């Protein structure tokens, strides 16, 4: 791009009116005040989810002393994997103000294909996985095209797909049957762990990488006098991330076998690196790519996006393709956890759990707001409920009641904060 004449032809630019910018959040105190103002204005982000997680942990830990054991924590990580990945996909359709009710069964259908490729055709794990993800992508392409080109509300299109896609596993597996899912690598995602040393190396790399990136960003922004966070806040963020990542690594690196004298279970479950890789990748896409920016724009004001020359139809279709492809990976993780694929896979609560996870995490049902990280935080909340209740030997109806209640609560927080945002204008 060339420098435009409009700015270049002004010999000495009038004094900029943005002196406030550099003063705006110069200290941690200012940042804290900004944050409180944002909360007041209804921009809650992931705060409700984090408070909810703390609350659930406190309740379950006080009711059952097995809840906080490293064994159960590792279980929680494994159980939350498929919900988190599905929720991450859902974030993309919620971002553009749409919904995908078929994501759960799309995952089931894809997992069926993966299992069949492994069993009937002896494909290797990665080829079978690619086939499954391709099935997801095609489903998303079909849904997205119907929504974007015909203008059918996504609610209706995906409801139809929710019904129709359940036929796929039913036809391929037969009612009452199931396909075993015991490929060493894919099943291993849930039952095997990263070697302890490798886990530590990866954890340290993540912390160092995050620190380097944050500090580099701080330096390049502050050197040019652009809007940036105060150094203190950057350091605090790095410290918090380091505590979480290194703390969890330490926790999961200890021997967590129920009877440690007899055998050893230690290391980060393989699900975790899969989730983290997806989190990093999609965070990059959402925050640093043009496509990500366009997703937010379409969700915020589709007409403005169209006038800005953005291909709104393409963005819409891509959101559904990403959602269904992530659903395929989620279906794979679910199958890896249970060790089998059955005709009902993905047709249960998976979808509502995932929508709940995304919304609890801070993604808006009304479009334009959301992050990949929301899915992780919200997914942990949703997974904690059945995990904790399971330890308490509660009847499963309680689980439905509690999860339904949490979903309703999250949607209410979303709706209320949206109202406050529009009145506070934040």
């Amino acid at each position, binding site marked *: 791009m060339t420098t435009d004449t409009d700015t270049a032809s002004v010999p000495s*630019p009038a004094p900029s*009116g943005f002196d*406030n*910018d550099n003063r*705006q959040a110069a200290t941690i105190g200012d940042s804290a005040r900004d944050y409180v103002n944002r909360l007041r204005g209804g921009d809650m982000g992931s705060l409700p989810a984090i408070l909810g997680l703390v609350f659930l942990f406190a309740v379950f830990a006080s009711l059952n002393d097995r809840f906080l054991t490293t064994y159960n924590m590792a279980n929680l990580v494994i159980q939350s994997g498929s919900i988190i990945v599905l929720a991450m996909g859902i974030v993309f359709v919620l971002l553009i103000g749409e919904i995908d009710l078929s994501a759960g069964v799309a995952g089931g259908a894809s997992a069926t294909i993966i299992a069949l490729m492994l069993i009937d055709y002896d494909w290797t794990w990665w080829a079978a996985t690619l086939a499954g993800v391709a099935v997801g992508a095609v489903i998303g392409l079909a849904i997205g095209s119907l929504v974007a080109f015909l203008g059918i509300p996504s609610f209706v299109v995906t409801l139809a797909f929710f019904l129709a896609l359940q036929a796929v596993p039913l036809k391929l597996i037969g009612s009452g049957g199931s396909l075993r899912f015991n490929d060493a690598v894919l099943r291993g995602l849930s039952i095997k762990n990263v070697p302890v040393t490798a886990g530590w190396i990866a954890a340290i790399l993540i912390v160092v990488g995050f620190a380097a990136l944050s500090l580099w960003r701080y330096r390049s922004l502050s050197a040019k006098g652009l809007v940036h966070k105060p150094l203190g806040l950057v350091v605090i963020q790095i410290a918090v991330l380091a505590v979480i990542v290194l703390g969890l690594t330490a926790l999961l690196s200890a021997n967590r076998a129920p009877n440690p004298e007899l055998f050893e279970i230690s290391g980060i479950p393989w699900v975790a690196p899969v989730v983290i890789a997806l989190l990093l990748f999609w965070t990059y896409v959402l925050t640093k790519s043009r496509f990500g920016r366009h997703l*937010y724009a379409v969700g915020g004001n589709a007409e403005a996006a169209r006038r800005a020359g953005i291909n709104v139809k393409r963005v819409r279709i891509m959101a559904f393709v990403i959602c269904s492809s992530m659903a395929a990976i989620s279906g794979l993780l679910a199958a890896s956890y249970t060790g089998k694929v059955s005709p009902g896979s993905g047709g249960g609560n998976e979808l509502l759990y995932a929508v709940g996870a995304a919304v609890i995490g801070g993604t808006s049902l009304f479009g334009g707001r959301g992050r990949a990280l929301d899915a992780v935080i919200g997914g942990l909340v949703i997974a904690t409920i059945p995990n904790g209740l399971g330890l308490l030997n509660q009847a499963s109806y309680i689980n439905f009641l509690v999860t339904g209640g949490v979903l309703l609560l999250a949607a209410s927080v979303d709706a209320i904060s949206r109202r406050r945002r529009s009145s506070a204008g*934040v």
Partner: protein
Amino acid sequence: MPEPLLELRGVNKSFGVVHVLHDVDFAVYPGQVTALVGDNGAGKSTLVKIIAGIYGRDSGDYVFEGKKVEVHGPRDVAALGIEIVYQDLALCDNLDIVENMFLGREETSRFGLDEVTMETRARETLASLSVRTVKSVRQSVASLSGGQRQTVAIAKAVLWNSKVVLLDEPTAALGVAQTRQVLDLVRRLADRGLGVVLISHNMGDVLEVADRITALYLGRVAADVPAKDVTHSQIVELITAGRSGDLGIAENALTADV
């Protein structure tokens, strides 16, 4: 009279059975402010959206710098160097000022979006327009007042090396001081050699900054005259009745097919 930068010839546009524009000729000259006036529903915004490539036209030619061009969407129009500030501003409330200004034309570096370049250029542009009322270029557009949003929308149009800028009622929602700023800005853009189109219902504003006036009446061009040749009351007559003395549409054309 220099060659027009942008010219529409014999444009017709219907929405279903509603015939909104009838054989409209419209020209924009470099270094001049062309005011487009007309009553509510006269078809001004529709004409702007046709120029913007948002609506197709049923017939007529689109001529840019003397050559007939085919435009198939906002992207083609932006590529020609035509920028539009819409009546309904069309900003994304969930994005900040910089993000809005670069929407659809984001700068990228090897690592993805180049926020440093974008924020720097956005600041320079806003500063060159002497915009001092926004607190931070990173505040979300939802938190801006109507006038501030207008300023952002104009700055967005000026950011690009544009040749023609169309402003659809840019001062309608503004206070006295901000209206002054916008009008000065409109004049300055024309003085830099751009072709500027100003749509406004305020005849005082129009007479102050416009070089030419094109009046639309029920989708027809009633007059296309130098601003210095008409008076305030003549423009009002052209807008409300489609004619004023020997200017305007002949009676029979009016009754022909409305």
